[in-house]
């Protein structure tokens, strides 16, 4: 989520020049660890906290999970000889088999069956994935777990998993680089990184429950978010462990054009702020809440250019309610609104 956070921190300085927001792109796990330790005013993560992470939070604290943007993970590949206007079709099951190492050639019958009009080469597939823990991988492995029973028991889903095969590259940029440098490779990539690096990397369409092959774009990601929200969100101050849009929409056959590998990205902030959280001062608390409020209400257009669709109105309303409940030393910060 680095591209959109850096767009927001930059845009916010135009709106509020005397407030400085620092964004450190250190990974979801580190973000969660640091908000637990109280060294950050606000944490950001692509994956909700696990049960163990919730139990590590300071006693008596309530952490708010605020979805502030959504993103998608696409199967990016590098196959010379296939035109950039041709997008391969994949299903969750075929992707799982590729990443399990069971499908090893590009012209495997399973892939050919999904792509009858494409001439696939008889080359070995090089699997690429993240080497570091990542919310993007959480979402992707979540989708693979839902799609394939063997993946679910053998590997499961988390920010870091024991990948059965393939090479690991550091960061989304690393994965994009590894795919670009290795012909006949495939890897899961956050869509923003493909949009900004169209070069040698192309990405494929994924089949949703309704049976349509969906090529991720702003519209179908936004529709997926809407469908996921319709199925129900946890309360802002509740535990979000195990929640994902992927799970909510996996069996949704009513919505014909939703992109199945979609995720929220979350901002994490304590509901009852005070100086006990590593010396948070009132101006810092006010600034944090104001920044999040701006991001949710006014900053959504900044992400559109780089592949992050705006939040649906229902989520904006939920977020605003959550933000109104944030207090500093007992006093609501957004008082009067």
């Amino acid at each position, binding site marked *: 989520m680095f591209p959109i956070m850096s767009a927001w921190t930059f845009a916010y300085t135009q709106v509020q020049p005397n407030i400085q927001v620092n964004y450190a792109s*250190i*990974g*979801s*796990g*580190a973000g969660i*660890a640091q908000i637990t330790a109280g060294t950050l005013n606000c944490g950001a993560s692509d994956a909700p906290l*696990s049960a*163990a*992470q919730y139990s*590590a939070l300071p006693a008596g604290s309530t952490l708010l999970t605020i979805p502030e943007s959504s993103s998608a993970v696409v199967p990016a590949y590098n196959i010379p000889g296939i035109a950039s206007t041709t997008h391969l079709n994949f299903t969750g099951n075929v992707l799982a088999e590729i990443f399990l190492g069971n499908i090893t050639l590009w012209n495997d019958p399973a892939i050919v069956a999904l792509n009858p009009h494409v001439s696939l080469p008889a080359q*070995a597939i*090089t699997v690429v994935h993240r*080497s*570091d*823990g*990542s919310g993007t991988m959480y979402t992707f492995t979540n989708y693979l777990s839902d799609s394939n029973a063997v993946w679910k028991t053998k*590997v*499961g*889903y*988390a*920010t*870091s*998993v*024991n*990948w059965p*095969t*393939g*090479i*690991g*590259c*550091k960061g989304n940029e*690393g994965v994009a*680089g*590894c795919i670009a*440098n*290795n012909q006949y490779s495939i890897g899961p990539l956050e869509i923003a990184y493909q949009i900004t690096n169209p070069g040698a990397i192309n990405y494929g369409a994924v089949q949703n429950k309704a049976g349509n092959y969906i090529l991720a774009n702003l519209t179908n990601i936004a529709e997926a978010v809407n469908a996921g929200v319709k199925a129900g969100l946890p309360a802002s101050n509740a535990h979000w462990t195990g929640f994902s849009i992927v799970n909510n929409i996996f069996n949704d056959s009513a919505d014909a054009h939703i992109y199945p590998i979609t995720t929220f990205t979350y901002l994490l902030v304590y509901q009852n702020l005070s100086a006990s959280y590593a010396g948070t001062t009132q101006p810092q608390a006010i600034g944090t809440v104001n920044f999040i409020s701006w991001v949710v209400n006014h900053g959504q257009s900044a992400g559109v250019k780089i592949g992050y669709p705006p939040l649906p109105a229902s989520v904006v309303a939920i977020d605003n309610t959550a933000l109104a409940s944030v207090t500093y030393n007992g006093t609501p910060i957004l008082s009067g609104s």
Partner: protein
Amino acid sequence: MALEAKARPRARLSGGDLFLRLLVAAAAVGVAALLVALGVELAYNSQLSLATYGFGFLTGTVWDPVHLVFGALPFIFGTLVTSALALLIGIPISLGVAIFLSEKAKERRALASSLGSLVELLAAVPSVIYGLWGLFVLAPFMKTYVETPLHAYLGFLPLFSTTPIGTDFLTAGVILAIMIIPTATAVSRDILNAVPNSQREAMYSLGATDWEVTRKAVLPYARSGIFGATILGLGRAVGETMAVTMVIGNAPVISASLLSEGYTLTSLIVNQFNETTSPLYASAMVEIGLVLFGLALIINLFARALIWRMTRGTKFRV
């Protein structure tokens, strides 16, 4: 006069001298204490993992954060293999450069000093730059021009039996070799320069050629010093993080093939330490740090023992 020289009384230290002596002693003790504290801290924070996995941690081959099964063997293997490769490739090269700089360039001082400076500049390049260069330049180059032919012609050997991908043990070994060359060269050159000229002159007087002088008079004299330079290089290779992470492929694989992707202890820490999602996972990561610490200590102690054996009975000490 001779008697006076022998019986030198110990002066009583006072004031500034005493203060200086204490300050210096404190620094020395402090550094030693830091080493001990580091080890103790690592052991303390990995208690949970030590209790859960015991000795099986060192022999386990699976690293699964979801099912909480952790074994360090693939990473120990990766660290040892890449470091050994680095030494195999890097030490002969740095020895060659050191011999050239100290022996052959005596008549051309300017050439020697500028070449020496260039080699030392290699050490000034930050390791993450080596990593980026390795990922975008060296790995594709190795894959196309070195590994694919090796696999095509020598693929029957287990050493080259897996499909080349560029980010593997071999490329990591090459990058580490490049990184240890400056240090090893600088130390070796100084060692060779310290060989007394009398050794060389004696050999020349027996009618030896330049190369024979180097091989039979200079190198044996400098043997333990060069070995010390090798250990310095090994220490850097074992601890190198970013450059290796970018080019090793980050897959916990134990394979006889140099063309296989792999994983090292340092790469694992830099990739996953920030993303530990449970206390047991975090403890296992700290235990990996403890294993790395222990490995570095063992290598150093082993090297010291070897040097002691080599120089036993001779006057030369490292």
